[in-house]
């Protein structure tokens, strides 16, 4: 069962630190694949901390891990990185800037593995 | 006088856009075929000849017809003053930008900045237009300053931004920020509009024929039947652009944007 959310992205201290370890480093990948979600939304989607969810937009999809966050219901947060890039379309509406924050995404629990 | 027919031969699979600014009636009407073929076109960092990309029929005419898939071809009719260009396909960016007169017909879609900063003439797009049709290039004080853009399909973001004068009519939908920061002029949209329509407008009119989310900085002043809307609709029909009958229709008038001088208006058809 998929549910619609608005996904925002941004820097985190940990992302900023671990990037120096290289983008292959586990710590870095862990940080940029962690999806913050409001506990109520997690309950509605029937996912727990650490569960995998699939994010989907018109442009692509990513599988990331859920964690409880302070975001308000309906909003998701994930640190900048390759997982969110896969969801972003190239259209910039003539500004040069793709829609990198505030992306409308479908979220569903991923049970594939 | 006949017409000049330019048939696009393609770019050999290259994805690099072709810049074809010399293709204007003003220039071509002075040239014989051999001269037309030798006009410079710009393909990436190379300067090539018009004849490399187009086969040319006809000469010395201010009527130009373009054939072939031109969606990767930019700058057609930029700054044109007189004559007529008929494009039988979709066209790339900047078609008719800064044009001051004459007429361009596009039988297909147009790329971004169609008619940007134009000051006169008619740009008629049978398909859809991209972002910023009739708008300003970045930094310019004004977008379109005169003339008419008719779009039978839809338009992208910021259509009519910074508009100072002129008319844009869209039969389909528009994305966000239609008429952004416009200073004067008119935009008619028969389909739906996106968010923040008229944001930052100082004066001018945006006439919407479908309900929309009006910005909080607009205030409803009244509901009435503005005569000028009727005048415009009749004028459009007389030019062969079909528009719905709205006999007896009323419009809600919202004034704004109060974040600026607030003398603009959004008129929303109430049926």
């Amino acid at each position, binding site marked *: 069962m998929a549910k619609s959310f608005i996904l925002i992205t941004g820097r985190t201290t940990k992302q900023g630190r671990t990037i120096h370890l290289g983008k292959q480093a586990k710590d870095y990948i862990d940080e940029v694949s962690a999806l913050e979600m409001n506990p109520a939304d997690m309950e509605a989607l029937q996912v727990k901390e650490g569960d995998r969810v699939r994010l989907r937009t018109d442009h692509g999809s990513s599988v990331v891990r859920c964690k409880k966050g302070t975001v308000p219901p309906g909003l998701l947060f994930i640190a900048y990185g390759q997982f969110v890039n896969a969801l972003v379309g190239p259209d910039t509406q003539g500004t040069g800037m793709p829609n990198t924050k505030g992306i409308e995404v479908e979220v569903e629990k991923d049970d594939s593995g | 006088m006949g017409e000049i027919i330019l048939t696009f031969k393609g770019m050999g699979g290259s994805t690099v856009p072709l810049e074809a600014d010399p293709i204007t009636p003003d220039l071509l009407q002075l040239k014989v075929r051999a001269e037309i073929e030798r006009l410079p076109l710009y393909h990436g960092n190379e300067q090539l000849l018009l004849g490399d990309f187009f086969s040319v029929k006809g000469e010395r005419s201010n009527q130009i017809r373009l054939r072939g898939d031109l969606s990767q071809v930019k700058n057609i009719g930029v700054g044109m003053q007189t004559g007529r260009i008929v494009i039988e396909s979709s066209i790339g960016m900047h078609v008719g930008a800064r044009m001051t007169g004459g007429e361009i017909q596009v039988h297909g879609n147009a790329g971004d900045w169609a008619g940007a900063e134009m000051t006169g003439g008619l740009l008629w797009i049978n398909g859809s237009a991209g972002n910023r049709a009739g708008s300003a290039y970045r930094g310019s004080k004004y977008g379109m300053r005169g003339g008419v853009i008719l779009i039978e399909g839809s338009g992208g973001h910021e259509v009519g931004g910074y508009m100072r004068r002129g008319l844009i009519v869209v039969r389909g939908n528009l994305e966000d920020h239609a008429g952004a920061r416009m200073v004067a002029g008119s935009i008619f949209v028969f389909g739906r509009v996106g968010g923040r329509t008229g944001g930052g407008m100082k004066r001018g009119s945006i006439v919407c024929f479908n309900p929309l989310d009006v910005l909080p900085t607009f205030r409803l002043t009244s509901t009435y039947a503005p005569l000028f809307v009727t005048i*415009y609709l009749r004028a459009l029909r007389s030019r062969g652009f079909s528009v719905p009958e709205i006999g007896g229709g009323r419009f809600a008038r919202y004034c704004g944007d109060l974040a600026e001088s607030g*003398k603009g208006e959004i008129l929303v058809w109430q049926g």
Partner: protein
Amino acid sequence: MELNGVPIEDTYAEAFSAIGARLLITAENERWAREAAASFTGFATSVIGSGCEAGVEGVASETPDGRPGVTVLIFAMSKKGLHEQLIKRIGQSVMTCPSTACYNALAGESWVSVGGKLRFFGDGFQSSKLLDGVFNPPVGRARRFWRIPVMDGEFVVEDRFGMVKGVAGGNFLLLGEEPQAVLQAAELAVGAMRQVPGVILPFPGGVVRSGSKVGSQYKFLTASTNTAYCPTIRRQVESVLPDEVRAVLEIVIDGLTPDGVAEAMRVGIRAACRPGIKGISAGNYGGKLGKYHFRLHEVLRS
């Protein structure tokens, strides 16, 4: 020359050139368009005393806003004079009239700003719309409409009005026995003449009884009653009236073109030549007044 047994004097109507404009007044219905037009053309009979001559030209078949409308012609002696009259009369008689709008209906030789002056009534809340020339194919001239907020909505008035050099003072005289019969003939003439486009008959009901001559015995008066045509003082002055004539009425015609004036005279005279009319003449000032001479015989022959 005779028409239906009525002798047509071999003389000419002497007319002068004047600057004219054509307005199109629309409204919710024809009644209110006519109300505005009536008020606009009120007290506009003679350039001498009214500053302009105006009249309703007819009902418009096509209007920019699709509403019923009437066209009005107005003539004055100078562009400046016409400009002032347009502003005053549109401001006082059209803007004030419920539901109306006022458009230019003439491709002018020159242009004056009218809406552009009246707009200040909007106290800063006026706005304008410029309809591009591509919607006006043969001429290609853009039209600007001012929108002035008023108590029933918006008064729309065109910015610029075209002016042309027209003809004022085209005329003919109906000479008859009985005043009633002459008036009846005049009414018939007016009815016919009002079908002619491009002309107006500025006097009340299209008819004037106080024909005038140039000069008077009083220094302060430049024109006075046309003594030669006044039956009641026939023996006191040098009269031109045959004895049986006891009433004379004049029909004055202003038009955008000399041809229009001639056409109006022709249909008017033809309609008027009926029993009881003893002669048709014209106001002829010996060529001193104006450059247009409409010879009655020529007008009727063409």
